[in-house]
């Protein structure tokens, strides 16, 4: 990048501008779409022309940028963008019927917030995180869509947020206790920074699996237990020992290991953790999340455990990240940095046959 900046200094004005635009287009296409939409907006206000282009670029820019944000939060996310396609009057009724596709109505400029909210909700419901929602109950699916939409609109200006809350959030959330309770749970999990990297990540892995015999009810119950476990974790006070610190899912096939015992960290004693992870793997758990403070000594200790289990236990590092978390200390939430490493077993399966399912996919005593 520095070389390019140096090179641009020696180029003439127009060439430098063209090259800069090309670089931006390649590196930040979503931002370019947003800038174009701002220019088109002014053009539309002055000339009353270009309404379609403004509407399309505005929606695409904002949603595609959010999709990029999701990719950063969730490495396994199969990034997908949106492209607004205007249908024309040339389509005959039979062509339209054979295409079998939904057509969204887009209002003229003063109603652009409504357009954006409608398009976003349809995109989130239909195209976003489809694997994540594969095995979930209706309320689990709806609540995840609403919570993700809320996070998208939280980044927007107040008028857009109001539109979303008036048209969707308050109506849907208030219409169902279940949805409201789930949203509240996601909110708590999100406070400690685990909504995307653990909950959504694990649901994504779950959605990739094919079971010989799919017991939807059991999977839904398993997800429910996993959500409750994460809520308990998120609500725990630092140092609180009574709350379970590890989750051994039936279908989720994951284990969470909290690494925060200062006595073990101080002496660098990795053995108890390695031994515990080994035990989890014997139960055919496939994903091990190591979670702890991002404070240097603790982070180094987590990395050390990660390296040792990769070497000895046939696990590979899927991703690691430092993230913001609001942990509880004496009942008060404190903003801090946490560290997470996801280790994935090389034996992780996509298809679970009858024998395997009988032997391993059952509650672990």
């Amino acid at each position, binding site marked *: 990048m520095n070389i390019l900046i140096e090179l641009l200094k020696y180029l003439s004005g127009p060439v430098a501008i063209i090259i800069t635009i090309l670089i931006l287009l390649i590196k930040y296409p979503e931002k370019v779409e947003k800038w174009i939409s701002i220019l088109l907006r002014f053009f539309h206000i002055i000339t009353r022309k270009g*309404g379609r282009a403004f509407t399309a670029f505005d929606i695409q820019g904002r949603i595609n940028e959010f*999709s990029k944000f999701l990719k950063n939060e969730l490495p396994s996310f199969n990034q997908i963008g949106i492209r607004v*396609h205007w249908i024309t*009057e040339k389509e005959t*009724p039979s062509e339209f019927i054979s295409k079998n596709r*939904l057509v969204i109505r887009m209002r003229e400029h003063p109603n652009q917030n409504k357009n954006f909210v409608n398009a976003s909700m349809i*995109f989130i419901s239909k195209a976003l995180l489809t694997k994540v929602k594969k095995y979930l109950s209706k309320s689990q699916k709806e609540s995840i*869509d609403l919570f993700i939409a809320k996070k998208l609109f939280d980044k927007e200006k107040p008028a857009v947020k109001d539109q979303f809350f008036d048209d969707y959030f308050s109506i849907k959330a208030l219409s169902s206790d279940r949805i409201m309770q789930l949203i509240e749970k996601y909110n708590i999990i999100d406070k400690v920074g685990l909504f995307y990297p653990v909950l959504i990540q694990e649901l994504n892995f779950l959605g990739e699996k094919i079971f010989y015999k799919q017991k939807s009810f059991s999977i839904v119950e398993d997800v429910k237990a996993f959500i409750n476990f994460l809520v308990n974790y998120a609500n725990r006070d630092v140092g609180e020992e009574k709350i379970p610190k590890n989750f051994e899912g039936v279908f989720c096939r994951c284990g969470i290991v909290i690494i925060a015992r200062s006595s073990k960290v101080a002496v660098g004693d990795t053995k108890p953790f390695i031994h515990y992870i080994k035990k989890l793997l014997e139960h055919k758990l496939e994903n091990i999340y190591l979670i702890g403070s991002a404070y240097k000594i603790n982070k180094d200790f987590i990395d050390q455990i990660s390296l040792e289990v990769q070497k000895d236990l046939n696990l590979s590092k899927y991703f690691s990240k430092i993230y913001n978390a609001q942990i509880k200390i004496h009942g008060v939430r404190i903003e801090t940095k946490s560290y997470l490493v996801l280790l994935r077993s090389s034996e992780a399966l996509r298809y679970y046959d009858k024998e395997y399912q009988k032997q391993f996919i059952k509650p672990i005593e």
Partner: protein
Amino acid sequence: MYRYNKQEVDSVYDKDLEKILDGLGLLNKFKSGKLKCKFCHDTISLNNLHSFFPEAGKIRFICDKSNCVKELYYLLRENKISL
């Protein structure tokens, strides 16, 4: 440039709505208030149109009432309607 797939979302701009409905042979029905919402059966107008889609050889319209939109999302999630 984009390094991921993009989901196309078919859309109709307000200014084009009459032409599109005319092309589909539905403009007269729309103007005379004969098009109804698939879910609540309310009359579809420019004030309340949310979306439309083909189903069983016919074109169905959805109004922007929250319950109707909720039903639409359900059909989308269950893959009964495509984008």
